[in-house]
């Protein structure tokens, strides 16, 4: 790893100012993803701006919903009383990610910013349009078992690796951002991007901007479940995952919000399924039909064809678990 400058900042304003001055600077919080990428030579920031001293570590709630500071460690968020009571889906997803140690280090903001685990992205001797635009995609014709089945482009078929973000997508969260022009909010669905022709851009955060919090709106979901299918029982990225949030009254689904992980460049909302489920009763057939709808437009590659069947199974199972 090449050496770099290191500065600590005490306010969001100072952080934004420091980063705006230097395009090759990066924020560091938990460091669990960034330090790894630096060790692999995937990224080489000239300057690290340590934001850990920023006062963005609170979790608070009001009638409108819940706010989680960007620097809240994943483990703290997962065990927070308010989260457990009102958004158990988020706690489940957080606990499904990484390891206890990593969850103690990794922050909510950092989790949102984490980059893909595509092996071609991680190996700097391989072509990767995300790492070096126009260098080609190693995964497209290569080993693509872990790769996208939705929303990919001919430039990139990587998936977003986060579990937490899948739950946040299903919970209609908002990303709160501080920039040189002040504060702005981006709905979660619009935060991460599909690769398109610019896979180097994971999300719509602009240079110099800092995530300061995540806001989850109050909702009427009374059933939820996060299902993660992986190659070993813990400490592995998802083959597919499903976050289900339902409002169920008298055995009938009033509203539904479903997102999948491990299938796209961003947490993948199943909006068609959500529409379909409204007004339906809780039956195996309904869930089966929902799964068919959810996987309808999947596009597979050589090694990830199983994800369609597994995705269907996972949708059925997550809905079943949520409602049982």
């Amino acid at each position, binding site marked *: 790893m090449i050496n770099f400058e290191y500065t600590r900042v005490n306010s969001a304003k100072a952080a934004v100012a420091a980063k705006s001055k230097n395009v090759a600077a990066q924020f*560091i919080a938990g460091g669990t993803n960034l330090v790894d990428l630096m060790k692999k030579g995937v990224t080489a920031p000239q300057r690290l701006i*340590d934001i850990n001293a920023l006062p963005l570590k609170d979790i608070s709630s009001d009638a409108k919903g819940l706010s989680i500071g960007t620097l809240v460690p994943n483990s703290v968020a997962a065990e927070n009383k308010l989260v457990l009571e009102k958004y158990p889906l988020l706690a489940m997803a957080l606990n499904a990610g990484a390891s206890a140690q*990593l969850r103690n280090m990794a922050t909510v903001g950092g989790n949102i910013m984490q980059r893909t685990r595509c092996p071609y992205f991680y190996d700097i001797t391989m072509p990767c349009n995300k790492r070096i635009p126009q260098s080609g995609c190693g995964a497209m014709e290569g080993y693509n078992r872990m790769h996208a089945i939705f929303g990919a482009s001919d430039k990139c078929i990587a998936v977003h690796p986060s579990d937490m973000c899948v739950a946040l997508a299903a919970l209609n969260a908002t990303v709160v951002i501080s920039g040189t022009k002040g504060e702005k909010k981006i709905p979660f669905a619009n935060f991460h991007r599909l690769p398109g022709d610019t896979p180097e851009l994971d999300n719509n955060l602009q240079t110099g901007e800092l995530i300061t919090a995540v806001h989850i709106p109050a909702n009427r979901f009374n059933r939820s479940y996060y299902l993660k299918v992986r190659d070993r029982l813990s400490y592995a990225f998802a083959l597919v995952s499903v976050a289900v949030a339902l409002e169920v009254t008298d055995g009938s689904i009033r509203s539904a919000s479903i997102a999948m992980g491990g299938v796209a460049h961003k947490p993948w909302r199943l909006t068609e399924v959500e529409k379909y489920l409204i007004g339906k009763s809780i039956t195996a057939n309904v869930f089966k039909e929902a799964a068919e709808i959810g996987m309808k437009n999947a596009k597979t590659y050589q090694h990830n064809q199983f994800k369609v069947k597994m995705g269907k199974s996972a949708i059925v199972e997550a809905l079943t678990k949520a409602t049982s």
Partner: protein
Amino acid sequence: MDTTNKNEGRRDFLKKSTALAALTIASPALIKAGDNDEKIAAYFEKVPLELEINGQAYKLSVEPRVTLLDLLREQLGLTGTKKGCDHGQCGCCTVHVDGKRINSCLSLAVMSHGKKVTTIEGLAKGEELHPMQEAFMKHDGFQCGYCTPGQIMSAIGCIREGHANTAEDVREYMSGNICRCGAYPNIVDAIMEVKKGGKQL
């Protein structure tokens, strides 16, 4: 990826921006005639770091790129903390920072400024072993012993965090610590015993 130009550019950048800019405010005594660029750069590439490790205060000067793990092992001779992958994928490097278990290989040493670090060397009180160390011996919670310090540090964290109520819980919350010799069932037994012992860890 062609890193040549980038790196050359980077070194120039450091010299121009940080190092040279800082020269103007640094004590001239620090910069003796004849010092080459590298020595000057090296001086300015290091940052001060104060932290407490196993109850002992350290005042250090480290390169920002040095991880907490490498600081412990290579610079401070605290080799009880192990390197198993260097990428946060195995848990051998687990230490406590301000009482929380973390992977020291993914933590830059400079990020522990002002913090309290506990390593495996800091667990025993003189001859008296920590209950978790005793339990690991009793239940043979290791074979080669390489992942052991990380397992023990993580196990203490697991109980402190309240994740050792059932063996199933322990298995899940200890999954960040890989043991290739496969001592897992013995480790779980050791942790359950310490948990049942009820001592404040």
